[in-house]
């Protein structure tokens, strides 16, 4: 596994010690996953949920939204009713 590539994709910075540790750990874990290769699933369909679900609809009724005070309670990065985030363009 290319740890650096996967870590970058996952928005994680790893120290050289972490890279070394995870490299070994993940190798061992992927070996544990090899058992999947021995299972014949040619007749199996992909299932997402373990119990059958049909479309579940709720009534389309208006409800009170969360107050601005509550919405912004957990952040200091806010300004004039907006969340402030880092820049996305150079």
């Amino acid at each position, binding site marked *: 596994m290319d740890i650096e590539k996967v870590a970058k994709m996952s928005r994680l910075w790893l120290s050289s010690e972490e890279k070394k540790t995870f490299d070994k750990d993940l190798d061992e874990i992927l070996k544990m996953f*090899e058992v999947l290769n021995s299972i014949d699933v040619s007749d199996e369909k992909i299932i997402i949920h373990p119990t059958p679900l049909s479309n579940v609809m709720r009534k389309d009724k208006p409800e009170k939204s969360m107050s601005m005070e509550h919405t912004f309670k957990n952040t200091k990065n806010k300004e004039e009713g907006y969340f402030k985030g880092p820049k996305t363009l150079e």
Partner: protein
Amino acid sequence: MNLREWLEEELTNKEIKENISYIIEKAKTLDKDYNFMITFNEEDPKDYQETKLKGLVVSVKDCFTTKNMRTTAGSRILEDYIPPFDATIVKRLKDAGAHILGKTAMDEFGFGSFSTNCAFNIPKNANDVTRVAGGSSGGAGVITRLLKGEPHVAIAESTGGSISNPAAFNGVFSITPTYGLLSRYGLIDYANTLDKPGVMASSAYDLAFILNTIKGRDERDPTTHDYPLDFLKVLSSFDPSNSKIAIIKDYEERIIDKEIKNSLKKVIDFLVNEGLEVEEISLSLTDAALASYYVIATAEASTNLAKYCGMRYGKEGDVKGKHFDEYFSEIRSKYFGEEVKRRIILGSFVRMAGYRDAYYIKALKVRSKVIKEFKQHLLNYDFLLAPTMPILPPKFEDVENLRPHEVYALDVLTVPVNLAGLPHVNVPLKTTLSLPAGLHIISDHFKDANALAMAYWIEQNYKGIF
């Protein structure tokens, strides 16, 4: 006073408040030695006399949101998070007159089997403080055992065994219901298709009582189902004599600790002596189920945890002048623990182009096959019995040097049934030591009340309950 006595007793508001205060003080004193709580609720008890639960004390695993009460999921990244809303289960409990004691310790985001991955308090086993509490709902298991005999229940959550494991390690009853029986709204996700809220208590009766209060469809969680059955009625009318039971033989063979083997044999002998039909079955996909689970769980976790990026809530930094890649990576790297990083990387990898079919898609198909295998047996048997864990609760020093894949492998008895979303109950069994073993009672989807009724019948009639 246990839960049943608490509900039957005619208490004034003053007496109820005094009792609640006594339990809070008892819990706070015990917590100094056992570390089972992350946050205590500091609100004063209300006038609960006219309510259904009359101020029953409920502890809540710290992955359920509690309005205006800190909710961390055991992670530094949510260390200061004060949710503006209650999880549906918490709301239903509060509406019925429960007094929320506080939030119990857990592995960070539920990633662990011993609760040693908690970023705050690491809980200690209720029966031996040198041993682990189990995980990931470790705090819930410890407090439930320590408050045995008091009117208290714990709300917990299982993805791959996080309720049964600490229930078995601490010696309490627990139920992990069918996937979708209890609402996940307000649950901080680990893996959406696997996460199941559940309950721990001192008796199967208490579990049934609480399930009646919190079960059923929630329009905020479209995966929930209605469950019209009254759990207590099923308990009181249950007759085990017509039940067909099977022991999962290859689970029995995976027991590492002889004490567990002996406890299991004794309870099975009891069932046979009572005239119940007990046969043996084998499951062929146990190791594949373990692999399938860890692929699916980490894949889902890696996307779920993408939301922790230092914006809107959770730990944050100064966004000024920073590019989003740099900012998100900085916050996540600083505040996520080691196991979280490991699982995010693993989960991202199994979904990557070139590997997705070999791991993620394959795991989904294996999951389908595992469910079919269980359900085929459940056509012939009402209950499948198995040991809950292959080992007694280990000492802290013994788990320190375990490799991650060795820790994952210890989940082998709890993971398959969680992968299948089947209901399962832990019954705490005596051993010859001062530590408990666990018996798993597994039933078909939505036969939760039957599994609980069987557990209750064993609790009432078998002398070897821990």
